[in-house]
């Protein structure tokens, strides 16, 4: 299917926080309580619409287990967005966020939009990390924040789509050079020609909504 833009996302975070479940909920709208441990990278994709434009989200679900990390971090490169996930019922997954964040920033471009996700919000009775803590961490590090539940689908759509909106806004603001594929954004075939004419006008310009 034709798209105006393709955004590359990575999903990162400790093992067992629900990264693959979030992806499955977003792409297939279903929840799978038992999931195989991810090794390497699993892929998912879905079309969304922002500002009347078809945007393809190409999502790279990475292995969370420490032992696979040296491999998966090599795939961070060229991501436009990252979902950094922790489990609200496991304090340790929250404590490891700084390491994940450093890793992500070191191995991807500086403009990458990062959405911090506190997953498993349906398990309120087992909560170990307050929502306020997540918000504070996000504020401190310049991230967007949401609590989600892959099980109930609460906020899952919003997490992926809000990240895309942020990326889209950055494109409009000229923060992302859309002709540089290292930014994790690719222009769809039908928009390539149009954008070629606009590319020169991008630097720092507040672009209008419909032009790209």
């Amino acid at each position, binding site marked *: 299917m034709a798209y105006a833009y*393709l955004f590359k996302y990575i999903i990162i975070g400790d093992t067992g926080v629900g990264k693959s479940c979030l992806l499955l909920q977003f792409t297939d709208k279903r929840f799978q309580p038992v999931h*195989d*441990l991810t*090794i*390497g*990278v*699993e*892929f998912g*994709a879905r079309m969304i619409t922002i500002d009347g434009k078809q945007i393809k989200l*190409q999502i790279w679900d990475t292995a969370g*287990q420490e*032992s*696979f990390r*040296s*491999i998966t971090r*090599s*795939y961070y490169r*060229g991501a436009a967005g990252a979902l950094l996930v922790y489990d609200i019922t496991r304090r340790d997954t929250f404590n490891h966020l700084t390491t994940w964040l450093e890793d992500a920033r070191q191995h991807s471009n500086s403009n990458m939009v990062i959405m911090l996700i506190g997953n498993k919000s349906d398990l309120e009775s087992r909560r170990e990390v307050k929502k306020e803590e997540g918000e504070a961490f996000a504020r401190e590090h310049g991230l967007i924040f949401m609590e989600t539940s892959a099980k109930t689908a609460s906020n899952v759509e919003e997490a992926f789509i809000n990240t895309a909106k942020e990326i889209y806004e950055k494109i409009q603001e000229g923060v992302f050079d859309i002709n540089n*594929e290292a930014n994790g954004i*690719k222009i769809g075939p039908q928009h390539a020609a149009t954008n070629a004419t606009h590319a020169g006008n991008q630097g720092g310009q507040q672009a209008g909504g419909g032009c790209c």
Partner: protein
Amino acid sequence: MLSSVPHRKTWWKWKKTVKVTRSYPTFSSPNAWKAFRGLLPVDGEPNPGVGLGVVEGLLCQKVHSPEFNLFPDSVVFESNFVQVKRGRNWLDIHKASDTTALGVTSSVPCLPLPNIILMASVKWHQGQSQTWNRPSTAPSIFLKRILPLKFVELQVCDRLQRILRLRTITEKIYYLKLHSDHPETVFHFWIQLVEILQKGLSITTKDPRILVTHCLVPTDYCSPSGDAKLVQKKLPASQPSESLIQLVAKEESEVLSQILADLHQQHQPRSSKKAETNKHSSGKETPCEDSIPCTRDLHWRDSFMNGEWERENPSGPQPLSLLSTLAASTRPQLAPPIGNLI
């Protein structure tokens, strides 16, 4: 059997100047040899690998496309499979229009062996011939996963039915039946690949009869003469010492052992009894092997731990795909075969 023994622990000791203009085939039968020689293109002629649908196929096109732009300089060896499961007979898991593309490649072309497995799902149009080689209308292909080969075991499961068994370190097992549209030759390629992954490849070691023009170690350590012979030389002080390399390999091994231990814990309720059962069935397929605890096969992981091809981001030049190297080793030769592989 292979005429040369893989030298995974020590190959970096040698400075290699590899001239891949001639090498020695290692196939068992003339027919197999005839089949394999087709992989490598002769100058000016179309690549027969493309004709067979194992090179530059749909999966390769997908992975190399701007959408993914993965491993752009690496060859992808691929085929079309049908995912099956064990029953009294092999049963197809998916609809006939859904197939699986399986490919191997390398994260960087200079590695002597592939280190990546690619899996994609393919949806064919209704009534469309599923011939992998240049289908009239391209089917939809979705890249599903990238698996580091060091966490995967690939085996020939059923030669007659042309079925491969792919098992991940997390005990996910796929039975993949080569699509009927592929000629027999293609399954021979996979058999060959499985053998090579398990035993190494003579060209990746120190076989002095193989002339190698490219260098598998950093340029600084290449012989300036470009002599077509292997040169044995001590590494300069700036090179990591053997002990350091061994230490790294040991650490990798420990990491892997840890994973296996973790997994073993996860599988604890079912593992101990079956581990005992499987001790006696090594090398044989058993109906219950879907539940084999991962701790059983520490040895096959260990055997993969010391090769340069294990490294995801090796330093040094990347002059030639290791898959090209693989193909090169099967090139038609002036000299007679020196051994049988299978």
